[in-house]
């Protein structure tokens, strides 16, 4: 009873809370990192060094007036931000923060669950997240936000194809769709998959940037200056939900990249006996450190690079990344068969 119900429930509570706090503090992290890149300081007033800024932001957004456009579809208008946020959160059910460890006399696995189609679950849930964007533009009952949302979702879908094709080569390397199995495969094969599949890593990184609408692929967001982005009509907490969903997606992409290519919870050189001292750092700490590196990378990229125009963006997705993903898959398949 306890093992089947209470412990997973506890894990869910911990992971959800941690995620929501992390997502809120991502806002602060982004502002600070971009500020430091631009020789500024970022938020400094609220709390020491601006640490309480996200709380101030949250309070401000919650007490804002809730405006719904007059002729908008009420149900869809309210549902869209939720549809954006929920997939980003439920992906955490399969992300492994660590292996099975002994805690308080029982063996506890540091992941909520491990299903045998874990990676496929992540991809399919991410594809449902597209609906949030489409419906947001539709519910605004105006032509320009609708067109902007259709473009944003077209961008998402295109890069999803490239990323999914690439993930197949990772699956080929690991021999399983289960996330825990993939990490174990990296341990058994004595190599982080980023070294075995560098092209796949690059494609997933670029695709991840595009899927989360981050710079340099954030024209659908930035174009709100011109034609109105898909969230023009949203204000207050609903608007906040969209952006929290974006940050949550970013954290998901970081976690997935870390698990797939950087051996999740394993320390560097996990098989070298000489470096076994690294195992003293808890596994989930390694996972968090590595995820944090990628989050920092995403923010750094945003601070540095200009943004692509929409047609250039779609060009890259369809004419560059998908052929590369297919080539990568073919090469991986050939090498794997040749090595057996």
């Amino acid at each position, binding site marked *: 009873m306890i093992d089947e119900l209470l412990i997973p429930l506890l894990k869910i509570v911990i992971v959800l809370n941690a995620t929501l706090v992390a997502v809120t503090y991502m806002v602060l992290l982004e502002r600070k990192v971009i500020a430091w890149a631009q020789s500024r300081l970022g938020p400094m007033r609220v709390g020491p060094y601006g640490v309480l800024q996200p709380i101030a932001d949250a309070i401000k957004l919650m007490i804002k007036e809730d405006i719904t456009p007059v002729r908008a579809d009420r149900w869809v208008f309210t549902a869209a931000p939720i549809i954006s946020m929920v997939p980003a959160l439920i992906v955490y059910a399969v992300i492994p923060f660590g292996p099975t460890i002994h805690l308080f006399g029982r063996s506890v696995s540091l992941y909520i669950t491990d*299903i*045998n189609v874990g990676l496929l679950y992540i991809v*399919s849930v991410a594809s449902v997240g597209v609906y949030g964007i489409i419906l947001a533009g539709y519910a605004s009952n105006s032509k320009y936000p609708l067109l902007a949302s259709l473009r944003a979702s077209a961008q998402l879908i295109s890069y999803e194809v490239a990323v999914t094709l690439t993930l197949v080569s990772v699956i080929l390397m690991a021999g399983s769709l289960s996330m825990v199995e993939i990490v174990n495969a990296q341990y058994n094969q004595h190599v982080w998959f980023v070294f075995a599949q560098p092209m796949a890593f690059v494609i997933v990184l670029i695709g991840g940037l595009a899927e989360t609408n981050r710079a340099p692929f954030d024209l659908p967001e930035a174009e709100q200056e011109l034609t109105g982005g898909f969230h023009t009509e949203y204000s207050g907490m609903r608007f906040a939900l969209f952006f929290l969903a974006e940050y949550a997606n970013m954290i998901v992409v970081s976690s997935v990249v870390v698990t797939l290519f950087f051996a999740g919870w394993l320390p560097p050189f996990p098989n070298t006996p000489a470096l076994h001292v690294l195992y003293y750092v808890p596994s989930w700490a390694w996972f968090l450190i590595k995820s944090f590196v990628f989050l920092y990378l995403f923010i750094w990229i945003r601070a540095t690079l200009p943004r692509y125009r929409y047609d250039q963006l779609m060009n890259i997705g369809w004419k560059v990344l998908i052929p590369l993903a297919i080539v990568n898959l073919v090469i991986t398949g050939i090498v794997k068969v040749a090595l057996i």
Partner: protein
Amino acid sequence: MAQAIAFYVIAACILGFGVLVISTKDTVHSVLFLVLDFLFVAALYVLLGAQFLAAIQVLVYAGGIVVLYLFVVMLVNLKRPPEAHSDPHRRTKLGFGLAAAVLVELGAIAAYGYARPATAFAMPAAAAMPVSGNTEQVGWLLYTSYLIPFEIASMLLLVAMIGAIVLAKREL
């Protein structure tokens, strides 16, 4: 027991949303109910132990095909004001007649199958497949027993894609 409850609940939801798909006046709502339908069908697949199929159902149907439906519906919706969506020319009687015909046909097939169980197309025994695990079994079958239909299906999809591009582009 719990499985039976789960099945009946999910089935009720599927049927309920299915009815809502055809009865709701707003086209976009209709498509959204279809998405919910597909998600519940995926839940049904999980109940049957076909997790791979469930994930593919969500990925391809709910996350791909219906998105395309939604695109088209939204772009077409822009042409007409929302008031024009209830169709005055609905042929309700003809619809009921056709539904009755399909029901009779399904019933006949079920009765025939019950009377003469088909043994010719028995599933290859699980032991005959050298792999275990949901995804692996589906893959094994697809690439051995059902290879030709698989290839034909992919050719069909390729042709459809090329056809769509040729039709939609203004200059090539």
